[in-house]
């Protein structure tokens, strides 16, 4: 503080206020930045998803969330299959057609069979299969 400030308390008041606002602004900018540099929250889906085989009806697909991704669980000829339902074209969620036993993409009309192989549409890659295990007649996607 200079002698000018001592004679003029209003100037000191302004300086303190400006400094305070500066500190608040710095905190408002600094907090999100420091927080951003911290560790991201991992998905809660680390817990495995369990589907009892008895619940898998022929000709139907169950949609469940595993690891933050939506997967379809279904049986093909009695064998369980787990597919990532994100379309390999542009990532839309494909929809199971119970009547025709195919997956249809609502975005650009791609069609995949029950095993995820391409039937038609603007795609070349099959749906991605998701690894799973079967223990005591319960299918586990981990």
């Amino acid at each position: 503080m200079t002698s000018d400030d001592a004679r003029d308390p209003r100037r000191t008041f302004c300086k303190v206020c400006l400094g305070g606002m500066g500190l608040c602004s710095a905190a408002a900018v600094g907090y999100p930045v420091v927080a951003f540099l911290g560790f991201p929250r991992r998905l809660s889906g680390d817990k495995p998803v369990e589907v009892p085989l008895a619940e898998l009806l022929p000709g139907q697909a169950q949609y469940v969330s595993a690891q933050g991704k939506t997967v379809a669980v279904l049986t093909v000829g009695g064998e369980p299959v787990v597919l990532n339902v994100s379309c390999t074209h542009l990532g839309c969620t494909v929809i199971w057609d119970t009547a025709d036993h195919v997956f249809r993409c609502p975005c650009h009309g791609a069609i995949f069979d029950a095993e995820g192989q391409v039937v038609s549409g603007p795609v070349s890659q099959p749906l991605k299969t998701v690894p799973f295990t079967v223990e005591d007649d319960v299918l586990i996607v981990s």
Partner: protein
Amino acid sequence: MRKLAANAWNWLDERFHVQQELEVNVTKKQVPRTLSWAGCFGGLALLTFIVQLFTGTLLLMYYKPTPDAAWDSVMFIKSNVPMGWLVQRIHAVAANVMIALVLMHMARVAYFKIYRKPRELHWVSGVCLLALTLGLAFSGYLLPWTQLSYWGAMVGTEIPGGVPFIGQAIVLWLRRGESITGETLGFFFSMHVWILPATIIAFMGMHFVMIRRTGISRPL
């Protein structure tokens, strides 16, 4: 503590004359008394650009420029990274604000005829800066790899097709092929994070050096 800071400052000042430079260029710099608030638009556009550099650098830590991972990585930033939603939103909103400020700055310069001699090249470099700003916005729009950004890039890259003779070649060059693919994403990504920012900084440098040279325009 205060004495230590003062000593450090003096040490620096003795060697680089920082105090004097600051006084001449910032704290005691005279601007015309009649200059209105509208004279701030250019500086504010620079401020938003700095915000974009800053938030963009943060987003770069998690963003993955591949068709498989782009959308997931943006969602990861928005939902899992602490304050990621805020940083991502600021980056997206400040892009729009930057374009608005650049246009307001340009409108003022046009209205008050500030582009006339001796400031013709300020205007030319300014138009280049506008084009670069729009290029940054357009290339950034594709990066989240959503339906909206995909079709936005599709329509946007079609526009140069109207240029006679070389239009189709430009479209192919921009898309890196017939349609928007992972290669387009990679190309737009490199444009967005390095090539265009580096170019815009070079043009900004010229713009600022020139305005310091001629001085800010006095109102008519």
